């Protein structure tokens, strides 16, 4: 237990901040993922074949390639790409993007592919009559979507989105390879300096279990709330 003490003698406070970092990266990645889903879900559902192709390309490639490879692409290629864009605007200095942004972008793009599939499935399983009925009642387009379609999509999507959240949370462990100090990285550092890897990695496993357990409990509450009408 001494190893987990807070303060200078133990690793308690370091691991606590690392846990907060994991939560922060997961939430950011999930939001980035929603942003991508917002762009690519309409593309996948579009009437035009070319737009479909773009949407399918995104979800197929990201879901078929290992997460670690995507992270390496961002880690090694991220600053290069930014510098290339900057050089077009006449800025030639070296730009380094921090590990938090690279990590949450990489994980966000991965989680976005899964979210896109979830939203596509949810929208497709809504009865066509719902759209038509809303139109017949003379509700404007904005009202149709936000008041009638969106609540139904959320009800269908939340159970699957909770899976996406679990995947995202577990994927954040992979960005420890970029040097961002989250649970995995902090355990690695602690294991290295105390020569006690078994304890620290097991503790990391417990922290992850705790995070998944608590977040499942919270999501279940949301599920109940959106299922009210059924």
């Amino acid at each position: 237990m001494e190893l987990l003490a807070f303060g200078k003698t133990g690793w308690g406070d370091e691991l606590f901040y690392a846990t907060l970092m994991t939560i922060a990266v997961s939430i950011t990645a999930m939001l980035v993922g929603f942003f991508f889903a917002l762009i690519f879900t309409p593309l996948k559902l579009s009437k035009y074949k070319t737009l479909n192709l773009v949407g399918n390309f995104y979800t197929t490639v990201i879901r078929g390639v290992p997460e670690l490879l995507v992270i390496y692409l961002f880690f090694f290629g991220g600053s290069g790409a930014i510098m290339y864009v900057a050089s077009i605007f006449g800025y030639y200095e070296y730009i380094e993007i921090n590990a938090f942004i690279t990590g949450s972008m990489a994980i966000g793009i991965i989680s976005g592919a899964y979210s896109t599939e979830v939203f596509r499935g949810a929208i497709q399983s809504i009865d066509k009559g719902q759209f038509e009925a809303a139109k017949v009642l003379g509700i404007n387009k904005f009202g149709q979507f936000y008041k009638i379609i969106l609540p139904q999509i959320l009800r269908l999507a939340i159970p699957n989105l909770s899976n996406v959240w679990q995947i995202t949370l577990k994927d954040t462990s992979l960005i420890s390879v970029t040097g961002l100090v989250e649970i995995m990285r902090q355990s690695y550092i602690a294991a290295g300096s105390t020569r006690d890897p078994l304890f620290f990695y097991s503790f990391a496993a417990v922290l992850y279990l705790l995070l998944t357990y608590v977040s499942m409990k919270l999501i279940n509450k949301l599920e109940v709330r959106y299922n009210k009408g059924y």
Partner: protein
Amino acid sequence: MDFDLMITSFPKLLGATVVTLKLLSASLFFGLLLGLFFAILRLNKNIFINKFAYSYSYIFRGTPLLVQIFIIYFGLGQIEYLRTTFLWVILKEPYWCAIIAFTLNTGAYTSEILRSAFQTIKPGIIEAGKSLGISNKIIFYKIQIPIAIRQSLPAYGNEIILMMKGTSLASTVTLMDLTGVAKYIISTTFKPIEVFIVAGGIYLFMTFIIHNVIKYLEKKYSFQQ
């Protein structure tokens, strides 16, 4: 775009794909056996056996694969007692550690897939077997297992693809699999995009093959209505 690099790195990456495939096939084979074993335990009426099997799948599905590999590769070596037993011959090799971690991980997911497949078998089918005087053992092996395999094919296909992506983590314990070699080439040439296209292409090709094989099997074993 550096096409020369793409062409020269292709054979290297293809060689590394063999390692990936070896890891994948070994862990899928052992994982299926383990998954079947734990799925049967989950269906057991004894509450302790049931809880044991549930906590196994809960722990391995709730923690990242990376943690599991690190515990097995870095952690277990710390136990002095293990170093004296014959197990150390296996546990000192990163290759076997990776396979053990992948097996335990995919076993947890597979046990869930098979359990839900067993549970969706209609009781009428088992009762029909019983009324024909077929013994319980044969009902299990000849009726329940084939139906469960058919039921679980789509989900198991997803699991195979997830596992194939999971083998990329072997590169974190010094194994030179497809991702490991890709990372090595990227860090020596600083051409991430080219290498990503080639390595990602190989992964996508494997995904494509697995997807179509599963689709074919699904069609072959679908019920004749």
